[in-house]
């Protein structure tokens, strides 16, 4: 509001400096909240200044999109604006011209806001509707009703799913992946991707209840590699491999159109805020650490923490422990303002896909043809994946300290790994207590040295009673588990050191970009940025090509 007031005051001042009252210029469509996005404000201001006199001088208006220096000179000469003021205004409108900017802005404001808000509201209402059943918590072990003669219902197991249905899941995954790649690279269609993600949300999310899913599959795979007695189902292997293979060629197509977790978070995204770079980098390490923890834990055979602490799956199942339901609600609430918080800052499979996407053969391009560096796509990514072009040449003087720092950081990586291994070794004993057998064995030994009276029969007392049957076997099993945990903790510690080291090195690497382009690893390939490019609008027929620079005249800008 303050900005609008300032702008109107400024326009008033400008009109007074003209010495004439300008006729009201045609107002471009405003966004749903009645605010002009900041990146278009200078452009709008320039348009207001020029479009007034342009009513009398159409040639001037036409020339704007062709020759910005001419406009700048005209503004100085006719409007009497200072050099700095003119520079400020014209720097906002690049050689592309503000007409194209306004077209893009109209494209943004005509859709977007209200649709997003309605989708988010519907999704949240739907989830709230089922929140009551989700809060029904299961108790394990079941309560003792022996005094009231209440008969517990017999435990039922889910009916066997036919084998062909498992193969159908793989076929649907393959089909959806293929469609996603087609929508991203051939059709360049956000709408197609959106409906594909809705289908995936319905099929893999609510119908298949989030299982089988690619996110938890790495745990099965690692357990299958470590434990000779564990057999990984073929479907799980396929769900682990297929998205990664696609990512090696087409980036994170799985995240954009197939992952139900991402689809749900996309639905609730209303007003994305920009996460500061330092926070993004810091939180971006967590998925790799969670991946390492999940794999280390799964390799011991103790459990699958990635599945157990998944904050989205309780929504698909409309059931879950209270803590996880609360976590799910918090994730969705945060997801209204921070784009895909789970995918960016927690998802361990996303970390794997990120690494694979860094080596991908094809990459998402904002523009379908040429980049004019109009900067309109700069803020189009709600996930902070857009990267600015880097300066072409760097002074050799600046490179020397950078290279020295990089060298030190590369040397630091093995030190960090060694430190991580040492810390992991120290944590092996307390971590092993997470295993129920080890925990029971320790409680058994403690009971022997300092007996504790449990009073009524609690689950702990019951387990101790069972341990009395064969204590040697229990202690032997606990020793075996501890050995496994020792190896897993050493590996996990080393992994943490490696992740931190690589992160530090990557922050010190100088990347070269000539255009605005999405970061290979961070880009979810959601296709949101496509419509921010005037070239794309021309391609799909929403803007005449004549409004682009280099059409007809101004050949000096058509250098390729």
């Amino acid at each position, binding site marked *: 509001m303050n900005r609008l007031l300032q702008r109107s005051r400024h326009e008033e001042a400008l009109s007074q400096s003209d010495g004439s009252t300008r006729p009201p210029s045609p107002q471009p469509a405003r966004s749903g909240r009645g605010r002009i996005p900041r990146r278009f404000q200078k452009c709008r201001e320039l348009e207001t200044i020029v479009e007034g006199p342009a009513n009398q001088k159409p040639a001037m208006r036409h020339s704007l999109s062709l020759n910005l220096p001419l406009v700048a000179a005209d503004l100085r000469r006719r409007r009497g604006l200072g050099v700095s003021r003119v520079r400020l205004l014209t720097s906002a409108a690049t050689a592309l011209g503000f007409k194209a900017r306004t077209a893009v802005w109209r494209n943004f404001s005509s859709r977007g806001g209200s649709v997003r808000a309605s989708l988010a509201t519907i999704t949240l209402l739907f989830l709230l509707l089922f929140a009551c059943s989700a809060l029904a918590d299961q108790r394990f072990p079941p309560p003792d009703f022996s005094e009231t003669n209440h008969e517990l219902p017999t435990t*039922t197991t889910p009916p066997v799913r036919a084998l062909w249905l*498992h193969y159908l899941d793989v076929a649907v995954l393959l089909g959806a992946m293929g469609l996603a790649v087609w929508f991203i690279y051939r059709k360049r269609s956000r709408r197609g991707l959106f409906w594909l993600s809705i289908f995936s949300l319905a099929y893999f999310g609510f119908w298949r209840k989030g299982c089988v899913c690619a996110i938890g599959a790495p745990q099965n795979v690692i357990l299958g590699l470590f434990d000779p007695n564990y057999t990984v189902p073929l479907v799980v292997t396929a769900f682990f491999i297929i998205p990664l293979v696609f990512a090696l060629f087409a980036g994170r197509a799985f995240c954009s159109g197939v992952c139900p977790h991402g689809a749900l978070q996309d639905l609730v995204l209303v007003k994305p805020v920009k996460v500061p770079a330092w926070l993004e980098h810091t939180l971006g390490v967590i998925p790799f650490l969670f991946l390492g923890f999940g794999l280390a834990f799964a390799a011991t055979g103790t459990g699958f923490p990635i599945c157990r602490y998944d904050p989205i799956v309780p929504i698909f199942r409309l059931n879950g422990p209270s803590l996880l339901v609360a976590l799910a609600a918090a994730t969705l609430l945060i997801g209204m303002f921070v784009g895909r918080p789970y995918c960016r800052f927690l998802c361990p499979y996303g970390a794997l896909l990120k*690494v694979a996407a860094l080596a991908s053969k094809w990459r998402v391009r904002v523009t379908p043809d040429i980049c004019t560096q109009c900067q309109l796509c700069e803020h189009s990514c709600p996930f902070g994946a857009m990267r600015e072009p880097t300066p072409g040449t760097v002074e050799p003087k600046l490179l020397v300290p950078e290279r020295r720092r990089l060298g030190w950081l590369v040397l630091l990586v093995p030190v960090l790994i060694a430190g991580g291994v040492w810390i992991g070794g120290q944590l092996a004993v307390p971590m092993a207590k997470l295993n129920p057998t080890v925990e029971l064995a320790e409680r058994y030994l403690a009971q022997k040295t300092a007996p504790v009276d449990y009073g009524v029969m609690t689950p702990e007392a019951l387990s101790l009673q069972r341990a009395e049957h064969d204590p040697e076997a229990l202690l032997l099993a606990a020793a075996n588990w501890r050995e496994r945990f020792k190896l897993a903790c050493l590996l996990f510690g080393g992994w943490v050191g490696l992740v931190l080291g690589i992160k530090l090195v990557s922050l010190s690497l100088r990347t070269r970009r000539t255009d605005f382009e999405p970061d290979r690893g961070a880009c979810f390939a959601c296709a949101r940025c496509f419509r921010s490019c005037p070239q794309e609008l021309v391609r799909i027929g929403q803007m005449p090509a004549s409004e682009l620079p280099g059409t007809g005249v101004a050949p000096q800008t058509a250098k390729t």
Partner: protein
Amino acid sequence: MMSKQTQETPNRREFFRGGARYALLAGLAAVSAVLLKKPGTPLAGQTCVNRGFCRGCGAVTDCGLPQALSFKQATQRRSS
């Protein structure tokens, strides 16, 4: 400054990227091969179809998976 958005020009970075891509692909192929060639894991019929639940599973009588074998042992012991 404009630049034509065509395919990546071959350079050193792209060369390394290609190498990493095919190395990762080979790694994934190796993992798949190890998992599929494990004893008792033919392509069809011997993968768990019931998320590890043997009780109530229609395929348990003909199943040779380790969990199923131990389940059958346990149930036989209980019945005898």
